Structure formats: structure tokens, C-alpha cells
């Protein structure tokens, strides 16, 4: 089979932008750049940091970059030598191993943090991770305590919003201490405005895959766009990227150009990607002309496509709502079933693929129940297991067999009218 080319103009543009971003990290590490704050992807109040000219550093993004470049294993092993378990999240292990390895990576030197901003949104591992970094680095930590969505309404309570808003004001005080200057309200509003416009474009991009054929893959190509969405949100460069991306992808959709030369199967995918084997994994779907039209992973940092937008006139409260309500990680597991159900219906998908990763129990724990739920509703569902960071958990032959068996069954299903579970 001829090797498929996935990389287009957007990918090149993203690489350039991320190169610039990582150059900023290296400058910060060398003492000639901005002070750095570590924070996490889920939700995330990056606009506040941008308003203070504090450089956001995302350990998750660094860890996945290591995995994509096949550099994660030695760092994971270094952490395991320190006592981390083979059953602990490998993002954390790669990051801790890298931290003690001098913070040097093939893409940047990661700066020491001036602040560890632990935006706890659902993921309990976040708490451990940043607690450990605080212990090792002896740098200040701010734990942003975000109550989980836990009521039948699926909404945060008034108390929750007030609680988070209060904390954001305290975070601002801490940023003022670090930078030695007061918050510039106009800068904050500007960062929130840029986020608002970026989010609106990202939402429109997400809806483009409703087209037949879908103009891009909502899993494998979305991850290309997620890097600027998080690392550059709240900046003009980030907004410019999304303006270009939307224009290009909309043009493809209007012209009826799909991501693949042929689109035979449209599926929704749940779970983070196997970063160390991303290309191999992608090919396993492409050879069946199968395209992801929606993915839950692309909503870990925000759920713009379902109506969220930052509000420059109410910046702090809208950041609080983003953290509380408008991201996948702070929503409960059953809300994810609803999210997937909506994708299947509104994005016109034929099947659900669940990629279960050992590292992230927030995502994975209970996905067998999810499979049962969708299968009973007549949605063909495939569950495969590997990991998002640790290359040792990817069994290529077994993965290929299961994916092949699933799509073969889907082919038969169209004539038999039966449900498929693999």
C-alpha cells in the first residue's frame, strides 16, 4: 500500500508556530524570556497568565511531544527507578523523568516554573503530579479547586461559580506577586476576547466534519490544531492560526474534498491517542477509508462546539465557567455518553471506537460500561487498549487485527443489519 500523506499546509503552519512557542520556553529557561507557569490542559485559565505576560507551560503537551518523537521511554524508566509504579500515569512519569534529566528535550529546554498552577478539573492525577513537582522544585503552587459536575442538571451550582471566582481572584493576587505588577484589566479583557474569537472559530471547524465527506479527520487532524488551541490561546498568533485553518477547511468542505480519497466509514472516537504510535494507529483506520468525524479527546481543554464562548465583558466569570462546565474532564462520565451520542447522531457516524489508555483512568475507567451502553443502542462499538505515552503497551499486530475485524464486521453489517461489538 502506498504510504499516505497526511501533512498539509496547516500542519506546516502549526509546526512553525509551535517552534516559536518552544523557542520562548527555551528563552525562559535561559533566563532571557518571560517567567513561566506550569498548568494543565483541562479547562485552563491561560487568559489570566497571558494578561500578566507569564508564559504557559503545559507538562502534558511536553510529555506527548516526547512520546510522538519516541523519546518518552527512557524518562518513564527513570521515573520508575525513583519508585513510580508501572501502573501510574506515564505522562507524569515522562515529565518527572525529564525534569530530573535536566529539562532538556529535542524541542526545547523546559524552564523551571515561577508558579505551579494546578487547575484541578476532574483529574485527580493532576493533583499528585503538581504536588510532586512542588516537592521537587520547591516552587510556589496554587491549587485551583474546581468542583466536579455532580448534579443531575449537569451544571455547576451558584456556590461552585462563586467559589471558583474567588479563587481566580486569589490567583490574580499571586500573579501580581510574581510579576510585581497589578493586573491590567484591559489586558485580561483582550486575552479573553482573543480566546472568545479563537473558540468560535474552533467550534465552526468542529462542525465542518458534519459534511460528507468530512474535510479533515476530527481525531488525527484535530490534535494538530489542539496544540495552538492550548499553547497559544489568548494571543493574536493563536487567533490568526484558527482564521487560516477555518478558511482552508471550509473551502475543502464546500468543494466536497474529503480528508481521504474515499470515505467509507464515519466513526466517533473516544479516548486520547496512542502518541508513541500515532502514525501507525492512523494508518489502521485509513486503510479502511474510515474517518473520525468527532472525538472526545479534542474537548479535554474546552467544549466550544456545544456553545461555550468566553465573555470579554465578564472575563473572570467566563473563565470560571470554562473551568467548571465547559470542558470534558470536569464533566461526569455519563455526560460523556451524552456527548458521544450527540456526535453519533448530529455528525452522522456509523460506529464508535473507544481507545482505552491505561495511563488515564479519568478517561478510561468504566469504558466497558460505555461499550455496553452504546452496543445496546445498536451502535457498533470497538474497544481497543494501549497507552497515551508508554510505547510498551502498544501491540501492533493485535491492534490491527481488532480494527480489521471491526471494519470487516461493519461491512457485513450493512447487509445483515446486526450490531457489532469487538
Amino acid at each position, binding site marked *: 500500500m502506498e504510504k499516505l500523506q497526511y501533512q498539509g499546509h496547516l500542519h506546516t503552519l502549526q509546526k512553525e508556530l509551535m517552534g516559536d512557542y518552544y523557542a520562548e520556553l527555551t528563552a525562559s529557561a535561559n533566563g532571557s524570556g518571560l517567567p513561566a507557569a506550569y498548568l494543565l490542559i483541562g479547562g485552563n485559565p491561560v487568559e489570566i497568565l497571558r494578561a500578566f505576560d507569564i508564559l504557559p507551560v503545559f507538562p502534558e503537551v511536553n510529555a506527548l511531544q516526547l512520546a510522538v518523537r519516541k523519546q518518552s521511554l527512557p524518562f518513564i524508566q527513570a*521515573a520508575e527507578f*525513583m*519508585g*513510580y*509504579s508501572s*501502573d*501510574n*500515569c506515564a505522562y*507524569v512519569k515522562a515529565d518527572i523523568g525529564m525534569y530530573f534529566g535536566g529539562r532538556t528535550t529535542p524541542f526545547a529546554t523546559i524552564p523551571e516554573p515561577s508558579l505551579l498552577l494546578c487547575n*484541578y478539573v*476532574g*483529574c*485527580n*492525577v493532576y*493533583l*499528585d503530579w503538581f*504536588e*510532586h513537582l*512542588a*516537592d521537587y522544585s520547591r516552587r510556589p*503552587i*496554587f*491549587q*485551583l*479547586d474546581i*468542583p*466536579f459536575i*455532580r448534579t443531575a442538571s449537569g451544571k455547576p*451550582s451558584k*456556590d*461552585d461559580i462563586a*467559589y471558583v471566582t*474567588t*479563587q481566580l481572584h*486569589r490567583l490574580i493576587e499571586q500573579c501580581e506577586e510574581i510579576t510585581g505588577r497589578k493586573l491590567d484589566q484591559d489586558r485580561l479583557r483582550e486575552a479573553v476576547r482573543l480566546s472568545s474569537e479563537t473558540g468560535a472559530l474552533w467550534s465552526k471547524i468542529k462542525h465542518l466534519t458534519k459534511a460528507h465527506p468530512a474535510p479533515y479527520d476530527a481525531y488525527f487532524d484535530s490534535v494538530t490544531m489542539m496544540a495552538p488551541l492550548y499553547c497559544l490561546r489568548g494571543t493574536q498568533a493563536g487567533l490568526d492560526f484558527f482564521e487560516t485553518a477555518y478558511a482552508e477547511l471550509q473551502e475543502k468542505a464546500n468543494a466536497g474534498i474529503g480528508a481521504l480519497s474515499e470515505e467509507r466509514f464515519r466513526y466517533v472516537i473516544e479516548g486520547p491517542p496512542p502518541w508513541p504510535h500515532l502514525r501507525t494507529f492512523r494508518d489502521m483506520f485509513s486503510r479502511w477509508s474510515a474517518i473520525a468525524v468527532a472525538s472526545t479527546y479534542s474537548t479535554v481543554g474546552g467544549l466550544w462546539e456545544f456553545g461555550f464562548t468566553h465573555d470579554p465583558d465578564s472575563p473572570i466569570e467566563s473563565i470560571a465557567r470554562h473551568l467548571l462546565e465547559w470542558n470534558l474532564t470536569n464533566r*461526569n*462520565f*455519563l455526560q460523556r*455518553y451524552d456527548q458521544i451520542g450527540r456526535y453519533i447522531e448530529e455528525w452522522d457516524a456509523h460506529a464508535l471506537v473507544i481507545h*482505552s489508555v*491505561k495511563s*488515564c*483512568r*479519568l478517561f*478510561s*475507567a*468504566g*469504558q*466497558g*460500561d460505555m461499550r*455496553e*451502553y452504546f452496543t445496546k443502542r445498536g451502535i457498533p462499538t470497538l474497544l481497543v*487498549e494501549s497507552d497515551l505515552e508508554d510505547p510498551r503497551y502498544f501491540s501492533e499486530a493485535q491492534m490491527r487485527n481488532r480494527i480489521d475485524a471491526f471494519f470487516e464486521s461493519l461491512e457485513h453489517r450493512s447487509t445483515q443489519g446486526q450490531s457489532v461489538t469487538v
Partner: protein
Amino acid sequence: MITTTASRNLEEVIEECRTIFDIPGIEPAVAWKHAERGRKLIGCFPVYTPVEIFHAAGALPVGLAGGGNRLEIVHSDSRFQSFVCSIIKSTLEQGMTGMLDEIDGMVFHSICDSARNLASVYTRNFPNTPVEYLHYPQNFALPEAAMHLRSEYERLATFAASITGTTVTPGRLKESLSLYNRIRRLIRLLYGLRAERPHAIRTSELYSLVRVGNLTPPERHAEILVEALAAIERREGKSRDRLRILIVGSFCEQPPIDLISAVEDAGCYVVDDDFLIGRRWLIGDVDTGVSDPLLALADGYRNQSVASPVKHDLRVSQSQMLIDRARRLNADAVIVLCAKFCEPALFAYPLYRRALQAAGIPNLFLEFEEKMWMFDRVKNEIETFVESMLFA
């Protein structure tokens, strides 16, 4: 049911405790419910639940503690993957096999990612059982944390009242707080006694005395603890030359009681542990002389509770607290006994190890699963560890 007689010795008390909790399921609590016609059971997933609120609503809080090593996992392992700890699956399994049918409400908390998802899966699979999920604060330095937790507790009180039909009034809550304060004091006495005279009570016995409270009305549990304390005073025993061990890491899923015995039989006195830590979570009495007892209970969580890997109180270093505890108890070594796949415990270990090594305190890492029933290998490891310390 246990009957109190002045002459019962500790072995007899323990024997009866074990008949109550040593089988999978919650039958003794169900028997209570049937005897107390119209009363309700509220299931509490570990680690800590403010059970006083349920008691004040007239319900019996039932402490769930997994399935032990006599429950076969048949259905729930298709819902939760192989890399998820056993208590998640054994709790769901008990639900799926009807063992929790008499539970009138369930509560889970923000202790870890797997338990959180279990709350959702349980909700979906048992639509007739109301499920509540409690958010515990994760920034203890915030003064607002206690007020937010208070609002969580208020929601829990409304939930309990909707099940039992009895409103949690401040008066009723204060009575429940007094009762549970008393139970915690009694348990603290037992723990203090064991640390001082570990030959007087085995850890497996102490464990039984605490564990029985999961399935017994608190009024009765207090009586059992009082009886046990008296029986220990009458017990004769001689101190032996053994290592004094502190065990941490088993705060949620519980090791089989025979594993606890195996640790002792390998030549150790366990001088402190975190088994069933939820029953000792609050380290001081909750003030019942205040106008807002719900806030007092929430404040207890923020300011007067144990260090635990499911809490992230950065005002103090967890590792340093472990070192202080080991020194205060004159422990010779620390055993970190983690449930397999328990992320909070496994994450605590590297920090513990670093601190223990720096402090020169020998330590051993062991993993267990509640369903294990062969202990030779673990016992052998502990014996080797003990020998290496005694004869080094």
C-alpha cells in the same frame, strides 16, 4: 448480633465481629433494616464519609469495603478494565449480583478517577438507587474551602432526608456528632494502646474491632469498643523482641485480614496503620457546642483530619508527617502496602520513599489485592526484610 456480657474475653468479642463482616455483602445491615421496619441504609464508598449526617437523618450508614477474597468477579470486569483496582469492580459486582439491593442510597467522593467514574456507572446501572457524589476541597489553604464543603454537606443532608423522610436538624446532627466523636475517641484509645503495648492486641484484632462498625449501628459499635477495651486490660501477654512497623497505603481497598496476620506472624508489631482510615479521619472531636454543626464538621475535614494520599493538604508535607509519625511511635521501619492499581497510594510511594531514605528509616514496598488468598510470598518478603534488619 453481639451480646454484651461482662466476662467475655477479647477472642470472643473478635470472633463475633468477624462473623459480622467476614462475608461478602451487607447482610448484618440488612437484618438491622428489616428489624427496624421503615429505616434506611445508605452505602458509603471509602475513604471518608461524614456518616453523622446520615445517622442524623435516621439512616444506618453502611461502610462499603469491597468484596474481600470470597467474592468472585464475574460481571463487573467487563465494565472496568484490567488496570482498574479491585474494589471498584467488587463494589459494582456486589450491586450486579443483588447483594446491595437493600441499599437505599449510595455516596461516592472525589478520591480518585476510578471511584469517580464508578459513581456514574453505578448511577446508570442502578436507576432505582439514588447516588450522590461529594466534592472534597483540594486547596486546604483556602479559607472558603470549609464553607464550600459545608454546602456539599448540606446537599448530602437533603439527599439523606429525601431517602429517610427525616430532616437533619442541628439538634439531631449534634447528637450524632457526639456519638461518633465518642466512637473515634474509643478507636484512638485502642490505637494508642496498641502502639504502647502491641503484644496486648494483635492488629488483626484491632482491625476487626474497627471494621465491624461498617455494618453495625454506631450505638452498638461503641458498646463493642468499650467491651474490647476492658477485655484487653484483663489480657495477659508478654512483649517480644519484634520490629515495630508502621504500615501505610491501604486506606481504601482493604487487604485480606489473613494478610495483616501474615505481617505480624513474620515478626512484626504493627504500631500504626491506615486501614479503614475513614473511621479515624477526624483526629479531634467535632465541636457540638456551636450553632452551625454542619460547618463544624466541614471545618474538621479542613483543619482536623489525618494526612492521606486522597487529600492534598499542602500546608504540611505528607512525607514529613510520615517521618514524624514513625519517629513519634518509635517505629523501626515502614511498610508501604498498596492495593494493586491504586493510583493515590502508588503516587504517594515515590515521595515517601525519598523522604524515608533521607531520614534513614528502612522501608519495604508491597502490593496486595483484596482478592488474594495466598500469602506465602508476601510473608516471605517480610520475613526477609525483618531478618535483614535484625541481623544486618
